[in-house]
Structures are given as structure tokens and as C-alpha cells.
């Protein structure tokens, strides 16, 4: 009985099956390519972000050092100079 059922399959059906298989393969290939492209894009974004973070840290350090320069401190010092100490000694 099993052999007869196999033998019942029509040629049209087997062509459709082959087409389906081929389409599945193509979809799979596209999926792999898309994943590859996506990963490459993520890597590029990460590298770009890291580069900008390095730039940011350099700029932040520069700002930090500049804020400690005598010129930057001049105003705060002058505020301190204008204040009279009460002369108490501890």
C-alpha cells in the first residue's frame, strides 16, 4: 500500500516541491547575507563610536586641565581675595 501511495504523486506536485526548495535556499542565502551585512554595519558603528569616545575623553581631559589653569582660576581667586577673614586662629 505504501508503494502505491508513493506512486500516486503527480509530476506537477514534484515540480512545485523543487521550486519551493529552491526558493527556500535563496531565502536562506539572502538571510545569511543580510545577517552578514548587519553584523558588518554594527562593527562599523561600534568602531566609529569608540573613535568618537576617544576623541571625547581627550576633549574632556583638555577641558579639565584648562579649567585648572591660572587664567581660569583668576575669577575664583579674586572672589576669595575680596573676603575678609575674621582673623580667628585654630
Amino acid at each position: 500500500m505504501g508503494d502505491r501511495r508513493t506512486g500516486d504523486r503527480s509530476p506537477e506536485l514534484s515540480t512545485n516541491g523543487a521550486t519551493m526548495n529552491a526558493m527556500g535556499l535563496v531565502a536562506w542565502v539572502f538571510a545569511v547575507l543580510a545577517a552578514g551585512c548587519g553584523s558588518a554595519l554594527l562593527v562599523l558603528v561600534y568602531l566609529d563610536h569608540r573613535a568618537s569616545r576617544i576623541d571625547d575623553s581627550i576633549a574632556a581631559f583638555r577641558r579639565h586641565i584648562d579649567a585648572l589653569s591660572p587664567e581660569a582660576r583668576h575669577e575664583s581667586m579674586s572672589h576669595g581675595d575680596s573676603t575678609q577673614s575674621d582673623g580667628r586662629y585654630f
Partner: protein
Amino acid sequence: MARDLAIDLGTANTLVYMKGRGIVLNEPSVIAVNRKSGEVLATGHDAWDMIGRTPSYIVAVRPLRGGAITDFDITERMIRLLLQRVGVSRFTRPKVVICVPSAITEVERRAVTDAARRAGASDAQLIEQPMAAAIGANLPIDEPVGNMVIDIGGGTTETAVISLGGIVALEAVRVGSFDIDAAIQNYVRREHGVAIGERTAEEIKIQIGSADPVGDERSADVRGRDLVSGLPKTIRLTAEEVRFAIDEPVASMVLSVKRCLSKAPPELAQDFLARGVYLVGGGGMLRGLAERIARETSVPVRMSPQPLEAVVIGAGHCIENYQALRGMFMGSHR
């Protein structure tokens, strides 16, 4: 909108710097409280005048010892009153930068920031006193050279080597000018059998105290209570006696400076010989102390032009440049 504030919450004195205005408050870190009701009766100078002269139901205390909060509730109330006095209300909540000793523990740090937030600050950040002192003393800490600052406060002595805006080496001991006062009290009690108060001991230190022999050696009449008879008594103390009495705390301070010098990298250590090291803090004003440190370390010692205000001016500079100098705050990740 309240102006942001920098607070030097010292064991001896509390100073407040207001952004754009400078130092707006400078008074002793003392608070007088009614023991029965818990009400605050006085703060600052008024409370300082009460020390040792109060009836039993009033207690005039310093809520900080060795730069650390010993009484959290009283400190919180003191900070709240300070902020109120400089215009902070529940609708105006400023950012606050508080100077603390570098050696405080995590628990003590949290106690200070919590006290400031509860007292009305929107954000409370801490900065190490020697770093603030170096900024306030106008040392060239933005350059790659060795800068050494010795901050002697009421309860702590902190020595730091600073270069390129960061601390390279640090040494802190919980010995300060109050320990010098205590040493004088103990000496007079032990050698003369007379009890004196901490204000009298402080006066002796100011009048005739010295860490090293100075040209003008004087003596002073000291009034106290005879421990045997219980009656008032006057004794005469010489400068040499006082120098002997305070030698132990002074030696601890000098040793702490030596330890910090030994921790400094050689490239920076050579800068100290050329540029000298800087003394800040009220304790640094003890006669002969700069000379003694210089003698024992072979490094020139200079006094900061504003030894009492240097720390709060430095913290004030941080509040003026809050974003650029955020990395200097304790617990920040630079």
C-alpha cells in the same frame, strides 16, 4: 534659583563659598543645643563663645572630630542652618560641593552627602581637602610638575602630591591643631596640677606656641583651677615648655609629610626642591612649623597667602566650573 555652594566643613571652621559671589560665611564649626528639648540655641561664633561656659542643660559641641561626623543629627541641623543663612529654602535647592578629608570612610562620606541632601541640597558632591587646597593656593596643578600641599586643619593633617590635575601621592593622619591644644591641656594638668579649658589652651598655642625655636621666645601667665585645692591658680608657662608639650602631635605631622615625600615619584620629587612645598590650613600657622618641616625634610616650605580660605576657594572654583571639573569629585570615574 539658589546659587550653587561650596562648603569647607572643617573640624574647626566652616566656610561657605557662593557661586559668583565668593566666601559668604566663615565661622567656627560649633553648635549649642538645649539638652532637654533638643533645640538649637546658637551656631558659629555665638556657640563658640559658649564652649566650657554653659549651664548643664546647654551643650556647645563641635559635631566634627578629625574631619568626620561624630553626631549625624547635629551635623545635619548645622548644615541646614548654614544653608538657610545663605538663602537656601525648600524651593531653592542648590548643588553643593563639600570638602572632606581624603581619609574618610565610605560610611562617613555617605553621612556627609545625606546630611547635605536632607538639609536642602539638590546634589551633594565631595572633594578631597588637599586637592581643593592646591587649587585654592593657586598652585600650577594643570602642569606636569610636582606640587606638594600640606593641609593642617583642626583634626587632620593631609599631604598630597598633585600633578596634571590629579593626586599622585597622598598621606593623611588624624592629627591636627586640636591635638596640639589637647597636648597643652595635658601638660599643664600633669606638670603644674592645673586644669585649663580648650579655649585657654588654644590661646597659649597662639601666644607662645612654636614647633621650632623662634627668635622671640616669650612666656605667659595661665589661669586655671588647681586640681588639689580646687581654687583658681595662675602659673607661668615658657615657650620652651609649650614646645616640649606639643612635640608629639607636631612630630606626627612632620612624619606624615616625610611619608608622603617618600611616596612621590622621583621625577616629581626633584620639583619640590626647586619649587618648595606649600602649607595651608590654620594649623600651618603655628610658629616655627614651616621651619621645622623644612629642617627635617630638606625641602623649602612656603606658606600659602590665604591659608584659612584656600580650601573653600578651591572648592568654590570647582562649583564655578562644575561640568569641567566633575571628575575631581570623590567617587567619580575619570
